C-alpha cells in the first residue's frame, strides 16, 4: 500500500537519512526507531506529505502522494507530536471537529464511546487536562478511524500511563488485524508483536 522509494531528507543543511526505501502492506506494523534528532518525526511528515523529500518519493497504491493529495488524506490518520487540540474546546468537541475535517462520520454516541475507550469522560476544556489526558484525547480519534487504512503515529505512547498504553496497543493491534497499516515512531520497544523495525 505505502511505498517509500529512495527517500533523502535534509533539515537545516544536515542530512537526516539517505536512500531510505521500504514498503508497508495491509496488516503491517512498522516501528521507526532511533535516537533524538535522527529524523523519525521528519520521516513521518514525509510519509503524510507535510514535508517534501530532498530526493525520492512516497507512493500510495503505486501513485506518488503529491498527485493524490486529498485522495491520500482521506486514507490516512496522522497524529503528530502536537496533540492538535484546541484548548478552549472539550475533548468531545475537538474529536467531533477532527472527524468532520477528516471526512469521518461520527455521532455523539460514537464520540462518547471513543473517549470512554481511552478512559476520558471529561467534559472539561482541554486546557484543564493533564499532558497524558490530552494525549488520550488526541488518540481517541483512532477508535473512530477503523475504516481508514493507514495510521501514521508520532510517539503514540508518550506521556501515557500503563493502562492507556495497553489500550492504544490494543487499538493498533486491532487495526492491523483488520488489514490496516500502522507506522509509528518510538524510542523504546512498545512490545507490539509482529512489528517490523526501521532504525534511523
Amino acid at each position: 500500500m505505502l511505498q517509500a522509494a529512495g527517500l533523502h531528507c535534509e533539515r537545516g543543511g544536515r542530512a537526516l537519512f539517505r536512500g531510505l526505501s521500504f514498503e508497508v502492506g495491509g496488516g503491517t506494523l512498522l516501528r521507526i526507531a532511533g535516537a533524538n534528532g535522527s529524523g523519525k518525526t521528519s520521516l513521518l511528515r514525509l510519509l503524510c506529505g507535510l514535508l517534501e523529500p530532498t530526493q525520492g518519493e512516497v507512493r500510495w497504491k503505486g501513485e506518488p502522494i503529491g498527485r493524490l493529495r486529498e485522495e491520500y488524506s482521506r486514507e490516512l490518520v496522522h497524529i503528530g507530536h502536537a496533540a492538535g487540540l484546541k484548548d478552549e474546546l472539550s475533548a468531545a468537541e475537538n474529536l467531533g471537529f477532527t472527524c468532520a475535517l477528516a471526512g469521518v462520520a461520527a455521532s455523539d454516541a460514537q464520540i462518547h464511546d471513543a473517549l470512554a475507550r481511552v478512559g476520558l469522560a471529561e467534559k472539561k476544556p482541554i486546557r484543564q487536562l493533564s499532558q497524558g489526558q490530552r494525549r488520550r484525547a488526541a488518540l481517541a480519534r483512532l477508535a473512530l478511524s477503523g475504516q481508514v487504512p493507514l495510521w501514521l503515529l508520532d510517539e503514540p505512547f508518550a506521556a501515557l500511563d500503563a493502562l492507556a498504553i495497553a489500550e492504544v496497543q490494543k487499538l493498533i493491534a486491532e487495526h492491523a488485524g483488520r488489514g490496516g497499516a500502522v507506522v509509528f515512531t518510538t524510542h523504546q520497544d512498545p512490545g507490539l508483536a509482529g512489528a517490523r523495525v526501521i532504525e534511523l
Partner: protein
Amino acid sequence: MLAAARAIVCRDLLVAMRRRSDVALALLFFVIVVSLFPLGVGADPALLHAIGPGVIWVAALLSSMLALGRLFEADHADGTLEQLALGVAPLGVVVVAKAAAHWLLSGLPLVLIAPLLALQYDLPPMLYGVLVLSLLLGTPVLSLVGAIGAALTLGLRGAGVLLALLVLPLFVPVLVLGAGAVEMAAAGLGAEAQLLLLAALLVAAAALAPWAIAAALRISLE
C-alpha cells in the same frame, strides 16, 4: 468538503466565543482609534466631515491587521494546522473558511459599529449606507489579502512587524477606494464607481488569494 469548511468556521467561532477578549480587543481598538481623532483635531464640523471617512477606514484597516497575527498562529502552535492541511478538504477551501471566520470575528463587527462611530464626525445619515457598503465590500478583501501575509510570516521571529510591512501596502487600494466612495457620496457625486471597483477587488481576492494562502501555508508547514 463543504462539511469540513463549515466545521472550520463553526470551530473558529466557538473558540472565539470562549476567548472573547481577543475579539473584543480588535473591536475596542477600532472604537478607540476612531474616537481619538475628534478629541485631537477639535470640533470643527467641516474638518470632521472631511477626515471622517478616511479615519474610519484607516482604523478599520489597522484593526483588521491586529487580528491577522492570530489567524494561523494558534493553529500552528497546537498542531491543528497540520490536521487542516491533511483533511479531506483542499487547502484552498480550508483557508477560505479560515478567512471567512476571521472576517466574521474581526470585519463584520466593524461594519456594524461604524455608523455609530460616524456620529462623532457628524456625517450626514445618507452617507451611512455608503460607509457600511464600502466596509462590507472592503473588509473581506482585507481578511483575504491579510491571510496571505499571515501565512507567509507564520512561525517567523518578528512576524508581527513583518506582517504589517508586507500587508499594509497591499491594503492601499482598498483604503483609497473605500474612503473615496464615502467622500464621493458626501460631495454629492455617485459612489458607484468606487463601490464597483471594491466589488471587483473582492471577486479577484476571493478567486486568487486562497491559492496564494495555501501555497504560503505549505511552505510554512515545512
